[in-house]
């Protein structure tokens, strides 16, 4: 129950004689009533200034200020004018005095000697009225609070609906941009194919082929980025963290981004300390972070710009700072540059290529390394500065990871069985293997693969995982059980490059796991390695 409703009902009694006050209180006293006594009009007014009163019982005949004067004063003040007043008079009151009393605001006259029952019942009526009024006030306050709460909830749900709507619009814009961005490299590839169809060995053929290669690389990168960002957003990316030197990641990034920087005629200035800075991180992912920042700078800087890459060590962290003198960033865009799809709005004027996911990836990957990212720009045309801070770990002499050896030794011919339900994919793999001097055959499903393996006794099986019917894992397990296949090397080929996918492939009995699309270089290298291992006699079990 509301505390306002439990408080006793305050009743003011005013009489110049203390014995009258005591007698009145004695007659009226009961639970739920509180009596406030005053011996003069002045004292009563003082009390009324401080306290709320439900009913006033006023003696008429008092020295100085009489009851009528006091009632008039009460009627004159906003605070007290609604307090019901009962006059207590000695003896019979004449009409003119009563009239004056009612004019002053009395609700009743009671004559002394007072009849206790009548007085009690009148006080009871007024205190009941007072309680009801108080209850209504409490209900009104509750209703008001309730209405305010409803308004707030309504506003909240409107805000949420608005946020959802905006997210939906951004998603639609992103999908439109995505379609557009995928079509960008596809359109010249189609043109190239048509040119080659009309004139396979014409003067343009070589240019067309290298153009198609570049556009395809671009397409693959777009799709890799997309897959990465979706994995990161769902928290399904595995970091292979180890103690690495930050310089290694930075160097790898520079190597990756140099072609784009050079193609745009930019000058890249490096300021990197030689003393190794150790971080606990995934080399590939950190290189990707720095490379994305460099690519971003290269894309958003007019031809012939300046790009700076600085690494600054501090006590517990290191800053990687990538700055450019390019297009800069609008102030209202700054807080959003790391948001996914942030670039998706201005699709007409965007000629830079890309989906606006590079920076989103940067911020998420840095986050996963316990670091922070920030963007600064003085405004459009004033260039931008991106700073990534990563926590440093104590120095250690342990250097992990071995560089990929790259030597173009000629391939010793091997028998390779290609298993892929995608006929085109299988055929092109066959051509590639043919080109690098291996003898390859194709099976388009698992059952056929097992049959052919029995006949041709291959050295290597290149096996697609996602096939209808018997999948790659199953084919792998069956092949492993086949007699005479002890030396067989099995390579899984999938569109999924996650650590968990690799583990699954190894568990099924694969020796290697490669992610599609497979480049000729990688395939050449892998088969050469397998060949060398085989000749050295260190075979896999």
């Amino acid at each position, binding site marked *: 129950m509301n505390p306002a409703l439990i408080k006793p009902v305050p009743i003011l009694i005013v009489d110049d004689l203390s014995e009258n006050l005591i007698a009145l209180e004695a007659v009226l006293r009961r639970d739920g009533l509180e009596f406030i006594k005053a011996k003069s009009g002045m004292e009563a007014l003082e009390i009324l200034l401080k306290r709320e009163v439900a009913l006033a019982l006023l003696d008429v005949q008092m020295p100085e200020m009489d009851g009528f004067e006091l009632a008039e004063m009460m009627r004159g003040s906003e605070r007290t004018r609604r307090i019901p007043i009962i006059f207590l008079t000695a003896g019979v009151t004449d009409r003119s005095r009563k009239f004056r009393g009612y004019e002053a605001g009395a609700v009743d006259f009671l004559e002394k000697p007072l009849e206790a029952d009548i007085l009690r019942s009148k006080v009871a009526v007024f205190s009941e009225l007072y309680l009801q009024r108080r209850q209504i006030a409490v209900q009104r306050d509750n209703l008001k609070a309730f209405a305010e709460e409803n308004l707030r909830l309504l506003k909240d749900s409107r805000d949420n609906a608005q946020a959802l709507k905006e997210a939906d619009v951004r998603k639609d814009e992103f999908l439109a941009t995505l379609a557009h961005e995928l079509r960008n490299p*596809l359109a010249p590839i189609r*043109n190239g194919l*048509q040119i080659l169809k009309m004139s396979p060995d014409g003067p343009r053929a070589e240019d*067309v082929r290298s153009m198609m290669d570049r556009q395809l690389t671009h397409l693959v990168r777009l799709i890799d980025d997309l897959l990465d960002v979706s994995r990161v957003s769902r928290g399904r990316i595995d970091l292979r963290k180890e103690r690495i030197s930050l310089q290694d990641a930075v160097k790898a990034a520079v190597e990756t981004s140099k072609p784009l920087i050079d193609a745009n005629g930019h000058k890249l200035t490096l300021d990197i300390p030689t003393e190794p800075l150790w971080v606990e991180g995934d080399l590939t992912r950190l290189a990707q972070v720095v490379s994305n920042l460099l690519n971003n700078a290269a894309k958003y800087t007019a031809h012939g710009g300046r790009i700076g890459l600085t690494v600054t060590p501090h006590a517990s962290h290191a800053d990687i700072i990538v700055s450019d003198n390019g297009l800069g960033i609008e102030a209202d865009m700054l807080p959003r540059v790391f948001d996914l799809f942030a670039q998706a709005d201005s699709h007409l004027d965007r000629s830079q290529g890309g989906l606006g996911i590079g920076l989103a990836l940067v911020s998420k990957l840095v986050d996963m390394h316990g670091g922070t990212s920030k963007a600064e720009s003085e405004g459009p045309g004033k260039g931008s500065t991106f700073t990534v801070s990563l926590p440093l770990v104590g120095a250690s002499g342990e250097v992990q990871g071995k560089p990929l050896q790259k030597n173009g030794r000629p391939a010793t011919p091997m028998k390779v069985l290609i298993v892929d339900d995608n006929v085109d994919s299988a055929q092109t793999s066959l051509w590639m293997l043919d080109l690098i001097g291996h003898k390859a055959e194709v099976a388009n499903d698992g059952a056929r693969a097992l049959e052919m393996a029995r006949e041709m006794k291959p050295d290597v099986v290149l096996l697609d995982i996602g096939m209808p019917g018997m999948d790659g894992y199953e084919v792998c397990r069956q092949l492993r059980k086949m007699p005479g296949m002890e030396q067989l090397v099995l390579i899984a080929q999938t569109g999924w490059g996650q650590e968990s996918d690799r583990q699954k492939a190894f568990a099924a009995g694969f020796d290697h796991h490669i992610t599609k699309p497979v480049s000729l270089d990688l395939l050449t290298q892998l088969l050469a390695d397998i060949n060398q291992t085989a000749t050295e006699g260190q075979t896999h079990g």
Partner: protein
Amino acid sequence: MADDGNGGTETMRIMIVEDNEALAQTTGWLVEMIGYDYKLAANAKQAIDTYAEYKPDVFMIDIGLPGMNGYELCRELKSRPDLKDVVFIAQTGWGESEHRKMTAEAGFDHHMVKPLYLEALEALLGDIAKQKTGSVG
């Protein structure tokens, strides 16, 4: 300029305005193989600066150009008296009816969605060439 082998009829000239370098170049080669002459412009400014010297019969304009976009460029070129007989083809990745309406409103005569189909391009340019020789002779 490539000789179209039409004996006397001047080869139709096509100005391709496209900022995607690979797409511009391969579109140019396709146009050349079909048998017409082409010139590339990477943006609206280049197109405006060079068309008077090249005197194109047809403009193929990408909508998503940096700076002045394809709609604005088309409006600008259409307002020039020396280009009143020139045919404008919009080239865009957007093929919805609202996009077709926008290109038509900007003054384009044709709307082609990327990637281009050689057959469609050949047919369209053939029709334009036929109309041109018809109106001249």
